[in-house]
């Protein structure tokens, strides 16, 4: 079968199970767009290419599938960079297809030319420039394989216009084998045995789980490990949902805005079992004080994550699912240990600490507290919603005051910290789960970074609910200025916010304003029941801080605002 490059792309996407892509057309991809309507692949037209990538990312995080987006050359491609870097930092499987100028013009400073392969080399798992249509099918097969295996990540394919239009005989490779890429997913038994023995010998163990548990679908194994051997669990921001937030063994999130209990548990533990986490600076605080007295076990599919920041005692290179299952198996073989009794004193002390140091906020009257808004969102959605967040205070409150019980229910830019991520990601997630309640918990600063996607949401009637915790500030930076820069609120006050309600309506969405606490519940209910996209502009206490806080560079034990 002789096909054009554009037809091959469509055939390959179908064979990879892709039925939805996010994109924005342009000159270099117009031939692909000409082909697109002939195939059962739904295309979602966004209003900015960055949003196409975030939407594909949100789709991928919520569904576990590979997200796909399609953009044109030059500015179309460069606009994807933030989205790609966001997905790369958080290990999200994604294939980004960019148009490119015809091969004979590459390097000529042609119209809408950008060396996107060069630009995205450090923020993709891998990328390709396809120079010959004969290589296209294999390249796409490889791209999907690389994106979803090992430590997942974004892969970019740059397609010159003449390659898209050239013809070749099409055959899709059934299997793929790369001599230079063979991720190790099976744990080493000897290492597992050592790890199991460390657990048996520990008195104060803690599991520290990250996003890897979610991306490898191993929440069940994590729970089994924790329950069988009576191990308390904390997770990173990326790991929220990997362990039930209403479980008695749950300590809360750790790190800069983690709970007192989680941070103290890590500070005082004698064994840290890290699973699918990467010892990020926002988690560890001052690195040489992090779990300083503990032996460390680290399960991760990416060897570079192991002993990168903290030297570990038992490295286990494996997919979290196989790693956890193997660890459970090995620990179960150890005889004569009463696990509950062994860890009881520790677990009791942590339970007491959790009771005496809960996450909280001053409920003084008058203003609306943002934390309370998040609690209300949790209550009214019965904890069943998919929550997307922007970045900053809104993100931390969404992490602290919503109880995540299942994986893939929190979509947040953990690594790169991309403002403007949440809303397009929520749109992507809603396409994956049309019947679920999808809520973007936003700030008044962040939401304006991709507010144009209201047009996308309206045009496809994507019923995403945006709740803006509107404090009139770039709140997290303001908080730092208050605490560490003598209240020098330079460039953080948003004097001229738009009328978000009118803005929503201008786009054809619904908008509600909440400036009195007594209106919140009814308005949220109305918003959640509304069959289309909604902005709820909640005027919250302007100078509320995220607490507690470990200042940058301090140890986890040196928390402020406890």
């Amino acid at each position, binding site marked *: 079968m002789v096909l054009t490059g554009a037809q091959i792309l469509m055939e390959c996407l179908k064979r990879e199970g892709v039925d939805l892509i996010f994109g924005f057309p342009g000159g270099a991809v117009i031939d692909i767009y000409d082909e697109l309507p002939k195939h059962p692949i739904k295309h979602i037209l966004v209003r900015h290419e960055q949003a196409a990538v975030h939407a594909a990312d949100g789709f991928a995080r919520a569904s576990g599938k590979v997200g796909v987006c399609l953009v044109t050359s030059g500015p179309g491609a460069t606009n994807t960079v933030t989205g790609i870097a966001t997905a790369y930092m958080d290990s999200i499987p994604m294939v980004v297809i960019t148009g490119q100028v015809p091969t004979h013009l590459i390097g000529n400073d042609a119209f809408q030319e950008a060396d996107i392969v*060069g630009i995205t*080399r*450090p923020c993709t798992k891998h990328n390709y420039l396809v120079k010959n249509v004969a290589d296209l099918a294999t390249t796409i097969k490889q791209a999907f394989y690389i994106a979803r295996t090992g430590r997942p990540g974004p892969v970019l394919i740059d397609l010159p216009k003449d390659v898209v239009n050239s013809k070749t005989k099409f055959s899709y490779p059934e299997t793929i084998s790369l001599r*230079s*890429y063979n991720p190790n997913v099976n744990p080493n038994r000897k290492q597992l045995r050592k790890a199991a023995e460390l657990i048996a010998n520990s008195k104060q163990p803690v599991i520290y789980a990250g996003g890897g548990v979610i991306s490898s679908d191993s929440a069940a194994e994590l729970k089994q490990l924790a329950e069988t051997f009576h191990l308390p669990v904390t997770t990173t921001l990326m790991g929220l949902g990997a362990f039930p937030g209403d479980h008695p063994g749950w300590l809360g999130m750790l790190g800069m805005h983690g709970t007192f209990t989680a941070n103290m548990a890590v500070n005082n533990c004698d064994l840290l079992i890290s699973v699918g986490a990467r010892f990020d600076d926002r988690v560890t605080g001052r690195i040489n004080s992090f779990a300083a007295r503990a032996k460390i076990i680290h399960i991760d599919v990416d*060897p*570079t994550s192991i*002993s990168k920041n903290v030297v570990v005692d038992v490295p286990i290179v494996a997919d979290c699912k196989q790693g956890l299952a193997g660890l459970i198996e090995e620990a179960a073989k150890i005889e004569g240990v009463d696990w509950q009794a062994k860890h009881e004193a520790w677990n009791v002390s942590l339970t007491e600490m959790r009771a005496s140091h809960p996450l909280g906020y001053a409920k003084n009257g008058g203003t609306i507290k943002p934390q309370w808004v998040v609690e209300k969102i949790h209550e009214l959605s019965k904890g069943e919603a998919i929550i997307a967040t922007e970045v900053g205070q809104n993100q931390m409150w969404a992490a602290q005051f919503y109880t995540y019980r299942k994986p893939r229910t929190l979509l947040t830019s953990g690594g790169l910290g991309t403002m403007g991520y949440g809303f397009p990601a929520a749109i992507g997630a809603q396409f994956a789960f049309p019947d679920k309640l999808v809520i973007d918990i936003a700030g008044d600063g962040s939401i304006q970074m991709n507010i144009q996607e209201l047009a996308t949401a309206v045009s496809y009637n994507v019923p995403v609910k945006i709740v803006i915790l509107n404090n009139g500030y770039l709140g997290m930076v303001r908080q730092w200025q208050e605490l560490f820069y003598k209240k020098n609120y330079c460039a953080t006050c948003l004097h001229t916010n738009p009328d978000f309600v009118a803005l929503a309506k201008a786009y054809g969405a619904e908008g509600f304003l909440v400036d009195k606490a007594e209106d919140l519940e009814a308005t949220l209910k109305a918003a959640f029941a509304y069959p289309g996209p909604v902005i709820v502009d909640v005027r919250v206490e302007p100078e509320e801080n995220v607490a507690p806080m470990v200042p940058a560079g301090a140890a986890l034990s040196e928390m402020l605002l406890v």
Partner: protein
Amino acid sequence: MRHVLSILVENEPGVLSRVVGLFSGRGFNIESLNVGPTLETGVSHITICTSGDEQIIEQIMKQLHKLITVIKVVDLTHLQAVEREIVLMKVGAEDAKRAEVLRIADIFRCKVVDVSPDELTLEITGDQGKIKAVVALLQRFGVKEFIRAGTVAMRRSMQLAD
């Protein structure tokens, strides 16, 4: 500590950029770099001299291995290996100096690859120590041009115990 890394890569466009970009992006140091094709079609060989403590070198090795186009990475530092560099050096050699320059060249088994009335171009191969010694001895005659290629290195067939 100095480490010599031997890296096999897929010979495709951009592969060197991936390797070098990794070093610059992560703040690792490249002391010298040598690239060339191997006898196997489609495979190139990169030798990189770098420095760092054991943890940094381990991280560099892992990061290199993580690149999709990298096939194999070996740290030759703790192995017995043959290391060579090549230098081309244009030295002032007017009549009065010429005999002495040639004598030193001879002692170090350098080759004379170009001659002019007042200059000699020498080809010097050897490990870093030898090159350092030759350069030190010839410097006083006036070095007009100096080009040094990156280290190439190969594991010795017999790894004898010290």
